[in-house]
């Protein structure tokens, strides 16, 4: 059972199950779409945090730019969504390459501080260039995509569209994580000096991880803009970067599905609690402190413990992505 939880195929199966179960348990198609969209962005964040060891406080940059790029391409260039999405991915990858290249010039906490400062930079950039971004109002009237003649106006029709893209991109991220490239990222995370001494171009690998993460995050931003019909300024704010990071850490960094779990938990808890008490973020703050103290492997860690208790085998001490990959590879 615990072994099973380390297998990437199981993670993908869990992603499929999530896609199928959300419509059964949630009344709001918008909330369900949001869970997949933020789950995707959190998984992209995890590619940097869990797999490369880079804690990026700048994921909101790519999410926000993705929203703006989607809005501009749909409204001003009049492109269909199918043509817009690849371009948005390019915008995300390009920006992430630049931000990543600059940020990894410093390491450790300086790196974290730089990514946060860059997220402020892009926020003010979006705020000042209001002819492009609409400033405080955001870009309004962003249309939903259409399939053939049919516009995906209803919440569940759009959910289906998001779900397909979610599964494709999730599988893609998994491919990346399991590839030689992904293993090299793990080597860099575990011991950068060693990876560098072996001869890996560590900085190029980190920038590439940024580019992939940025592309997927921007796509999530584009999906979000089409969901709510607006590309708001708040998507590029510090707050979005913070939220994505919190979702990722709540879920746990052990694998990519854990991030989807984190996003689902954050959004569903937020939806339930904000109805009762608008200041529920106070509880979230307390939860984050509790996770730092007692639950460093996040929600996924809880699942692992539960599975271990059920099979009465000891919980894996450190079932990291590296271990998962090795298990998969080493199977006869």
């Amino acid at each position, binding site marked *: 059972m615990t072994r099973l939880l380390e297998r990437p195929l199981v993670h993908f199966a869990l992603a499929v199950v999530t896609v199928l179960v959300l419509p059964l348990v949630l009344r709001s198609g918008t909330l369900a779409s949001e869970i997949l969209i933020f789950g995707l962005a959190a998984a992209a964040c995890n590619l940097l945090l869990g797999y490369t060891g880079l804690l990026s406080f700048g994921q909101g940059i790519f999410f926000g730019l993705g929203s703006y790029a989607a809005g501009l391409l749909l409204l001003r260039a009049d492109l269909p969504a199918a043509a817009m999405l690849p371009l948005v991915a390019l915008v995300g990858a390009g920006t992430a390459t630049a931000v990543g290249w600059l940020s990894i010039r410093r390491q450790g906490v300086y790196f974290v501080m730089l990514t946060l400062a860059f997220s402020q930079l892009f926020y003010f950039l979006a705020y*000042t260039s209001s002819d492009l971004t609409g400033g405080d109002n955001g870009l309004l009237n962003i249309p939903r995509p259409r399939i053939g003649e049919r516009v995906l106006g209803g919440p569940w029709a759009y959910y289906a569209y998001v779900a397909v893209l979610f599964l494709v991109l999730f599988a893609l991220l998994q491919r990346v994580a399991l590839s030689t490239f992904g293993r090299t990222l793990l080597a860099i995370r575990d011991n950068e000096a060693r990876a560098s001494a072996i001869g890996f171009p560590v900085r190029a690998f980190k920038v590439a991880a940024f580019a992939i993460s940025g592309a997927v995050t921007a796509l999530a931003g584009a999906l979000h803009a089409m969901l709510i019909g607006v590309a708001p300024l708040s998507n590029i704010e510090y707050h979005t970067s913070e939220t994505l990071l919190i979702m990722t850490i709540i879920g746990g960094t052990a694998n990519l599905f854990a991030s989807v779990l984190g996003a689902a938990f954050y959004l569903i808890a937020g939806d339930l609690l904000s109805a009762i008490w608008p200041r529920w973020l106070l509880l979230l703050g307390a939860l984050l*402190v509790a996770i730092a103290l007692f639950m460093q492997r996040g929600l996924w860690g809880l699942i692992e413990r539960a599975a271990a208790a059920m099979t009465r085998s000891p919980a894996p001490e450190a079932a990291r992505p590296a271990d998962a990959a090795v298990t998969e590879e080493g199977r006869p």
Partner: protein
Amino acid sequence: MTYLLQILNGIGLGMLYFLLAVGLSVIFGLLQFVNFAHGAFYMLGAYLAYEMVGRGVSFWLALPLACLCVGALAALTEAILLRRIYAQAHTFHILATVGLALAVQEIVIIVWGPIGGNLPAPDGLSGVVILGDFIYPEYRLFVIGLTAVLAGALWWLLEGTRLGAIVRAGSESPEDMALLGYDTRRINTAVFGLGAGLAGLAGALAAPIRGVDPFMSVEALSVAFVVVVIGGMGSYAGALAAGLAVGIAQSLMATLWPEGARLVIYLGMAGIIVMMPRGLFGRA
């Protein structure tokens, strides 16, 4: 002359940035702990001064009280909570302090509401000084004077006293300090309180200039980060130089391109990182 006034504004602003950044820097130097709640302590200082003055307490009393309360509260948080996290990875330092900052922000909204407010300049300093053809608020001159004195006192505290020597030695090697019989836990708590107290003081001093609002913490935190990225963490001179540079640049831009004033400091930071990855005074 307009520029001269803006430079004067910038020096005041820059000295507040210095107080913020040097607190962050000292805490990191000793504890290897990035305090993402630093902006929250700054905001708390501002709100405490705002509340006390609103209840009729003199600003001159409110200022040191706000600083002491924030420092004591931070020391308490460190002693109860944060010291349990030191042994863990940076990710969890950041997570815990982000959580703390979030909780403080929500508490501020619960207690004082989401709108924010203004704090009048204190009695005796609400007037203006005439400088040639221009007038300049007395309070801002006072901020420059007080922060300059504080900067000097802090320099003396860190470089000239036994406590400063202990702190610097602790930054180099906490194990050796423990072996020599120093109670590093108490030193850690004291330094955390000192750093946060400086942030609280900066907030209280800034309140009559910029008012108070529940989102001032994020802004303060990111500016403090810019200052330490440019100046180098753990460098007193770097924090001073970078704080002043950022303050003056922001104030000058406020006349040239008001909407872009904030943008410019982040662009400047990006430029410096490209040219000098270690910052102006950085060691590592």
